[in-house]
């Protein structure tokens, strides 16, 4: 695949890639943008090469995940060196831009973000890849670099946590949701 072809494919996947980068960067827009830029740089430099072993989307998402983890580690080391120089929001959700603030008018969506941020990273990633990116569990497992069984476990546990959160929020809001659920057909 030549660079022009790859560029058009990346452009097509750009929105989904940014959403995935956001999820990997704990909803930090600036960091997600930086990660995506680094990923493109890696592709341009040839450090990340697509060999056609999986779908381009799966490969790209795996590269984004790895890059985000690397950036997070660097940031962690930096924060350990310069203790107390930067503080994050308590709920783990960064201050978003204008449109996001408008969107967060929906209280439920705001709570959902908080609940999502509180999930363990693997569970959040599995849920994001399945619900947000419409990937199958095997594709999600490929992106996360784990077995399908593990991915399924993370997915089920994450769903269970969100279900609990949903039922709590419903009780608070006085809405009764159906708690019965059919086994996952994903």
């Amino acid at each position, binding site marked *: 695949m030549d660079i022009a072809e790859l560029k058009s494919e990346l452009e097509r996947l750009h929105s989904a890639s940014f959403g995935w980068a956001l999820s990997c960067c704990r909803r930090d827009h600036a960091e997600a943008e930086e990660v995506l830029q680094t990923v493109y740089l890696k592709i341009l430099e040839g450090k990340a090469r697509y060999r056609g072993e999986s779908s381009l989307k799966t490969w790209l998402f795996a590269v984004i995940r790895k890059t985000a983890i690397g950036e997070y580690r660097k940031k962690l080391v930096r924060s350990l060196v310069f203790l107390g120089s930067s503080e994050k929001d308590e709920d783990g959700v960064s201050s978003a831009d204008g449109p996001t603030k408008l969107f967060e008018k929906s209280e439920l969506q705001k709570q*959902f973000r908080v609940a999502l941020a509180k999930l363990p990273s693997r569970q959040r990633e599995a849920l994001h890849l399945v619900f947000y990116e419409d990937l199958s569990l095997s594709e999600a497992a490929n992106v996360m670099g784990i077995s399908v069984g593990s991915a399924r476990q993370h997915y089920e546990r994450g769903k269970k946590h969100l279900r609990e959160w949903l039922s709590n929020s419903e009780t608070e809001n006085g809405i009764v949701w159906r708690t019965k659920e059919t086994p996952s057909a994903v």
Partner: protein
Amino acid sequence: MELSGEQKKLQALFSELKAADEQTTPHFGATWNRAQIAPRKIRVLNPGFVAAMILLVFGVVVFAVWSRYSRTTTSPHPVIATVPPIPGTGAEAPPVATKEPRAPQPKNAVIVARRNKATSQHNAMLAANRRLEKDAKSIANWSSPTSALLESPSDEIFSSLPQLNQSATQLKSFLPNRAN
């Protein structure tokens, strides 16, 4: 695939999230161009390389210290220690070569080794002098076993001069024998 109520709800929440994210997604061209013009990071100090170099330097220093220490403490020749003279014999006992146990402190070991070496050299010199003296005496007192055969009654005449106050008869003995 039929989704349950909760799953539908989750799907809806994720869809809302996706829609919101799409609004804030930066333009692809901008990100791509920034990546293209981004300065290539040149790592002057690779952490792995630095760690390896530190380990290497540490190893070299340790080896140097170890080699220096081993050279000073373990001498190749055994240390000669003097044994005090045995009373009654009158003679000093010859130096006995013994291996001294390694001292726990390297500085003391060096001092002791040097002192022992100097003492042993001095003793060796004294012994050599005594041997030379003895040899000279024995050479001076030496006499041939056949020297008695060479002796004659007139040995005294050859070894002494005639005296003026000696009698004529005695002086005659110095004159050559003439047939009268």
